[in-house]
């Protein structure tokens, strides 16, 4: 299996299932998990992460509903990264969320769009 890092925070306000789901999704979006790869069994995964099997089940169910994985009875849960439109849409959506925050903040502080463009150019080079 490709690289899958899951780090759970006990101080995060986000529920466990959401933290785990986001990290799997991010591994798929970054291409660290490839199309057709088998995810760990829910039992094994939950024991390793020390969370309830019911939590992992929920993660897999929701990822399946959103189209990122596919479960096959008796075989397991596989990554579906072949759906390019879904992957692109999700990337765009995640970035748009951050941009809306950024633009809202800029507007409240009276920062003009030109300045924002310049800042973005610099930061994009630097990071």
């Amino acid at each position, binding site marked *: 299996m490709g690289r899958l890092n899951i780090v759970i925070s*006990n*101080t995060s306000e986000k*529920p*466990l*299932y959401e933290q785990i789901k986001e990290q799997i999704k991010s591994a798929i979006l970054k291409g660290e998990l490839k199309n057709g790869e088998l995810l760990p069994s829910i*039992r*094994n995964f*939950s*024991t390793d992460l*020390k*969370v*309830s*099997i*019911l*939590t992992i*089940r929920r993660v897999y169910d929701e990822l399946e509903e959103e189209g990122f994985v596919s479960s096959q009875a008796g075989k397991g849960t596989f990554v579906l990264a072949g759906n390019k439109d879904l992957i692109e849409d999700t990337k765009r959506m995640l970035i748009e969320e951050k941009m809306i925050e950024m633009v809202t903040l800029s507007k409240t502080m009276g920062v003009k769009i030109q300045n924002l463009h310049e800042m973005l150019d610099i930061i994009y080079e630097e990071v």
Partner: protein
Amino acid sequence: MNTVLDIRNVSKHFSDFTLANISLELKENCITGFLGKNGAGKTTLIKIILGLLHKDSGEIIFFSNRYKNIETIKNKIGVVLDDGYFYDNLNLKQMKNIIASTYKEWDETTYKNYLKKFRLNESQLISSLSKGMKMKYALALALSHGADLLIMDEPTSGLDPEIRKELIDILSEYVQEEGKSVFFSTHITSDLERCADEIVIINNGKIIEQSNKDDMIESYRMVKGTLDDLERISSKSIKILDQTKYGFTGITSDYEEIKQCIPKIILEKASLEDIFLAKTGEIENEDYI
């Protein structure tokens, strides 16, 4: 997920105690922790499940009625009881022979492997076993006849942390195999925090909560503040765990409203122990304020 044990409206009356209308469902491949204080009714319910006590009313369905024969069901259940029910003057081998003969699918190889793993010597007398060794021996017997459901009454009570961890690792390993499930009672919340998938809380003979462990922990917060804060949020449901003239600590499920009311109030993740105490404790200042 299949249901391995379905308990419906089970009641049992004693002169001084009542197990009232117990309903719960155990899901396959889960470790379900059965949490309650001493005297809450845990052992009584386990004895009823195992047929060691008769119930007054209600229904108990094993393995979704997959097996028609009561003997088959007995073979599919592994049992570890608190006081062992072993004969003190026999050695491990003699006791094992008695128990093995009552099961159809006794697996001597598995049994021998567990003995080795637990560093138990077959020629030792039962009476010479420490509490931890007795539990391990009982577990070795319970896991050596192809059981799909392991039912344990207070397996961790009175054991040191290292042996408790060892037991928990074995349970976690056991449920990795498809179709294996565990139900165990305890009053030690840290054992469940480490390995349980689902938690059932019993108090005064009634089930007061059953849910996914993570959901249960996430639906509460520990709230801390000054007594002035406490007054301002007195309409919210908080169970006070501790209160002095300097401030208070409590458990709440109304944390979103409390946060809106006092944005700077301290809200922290609650532990299962805090939640359990809040739900069952007879702490001073017990009333919901």
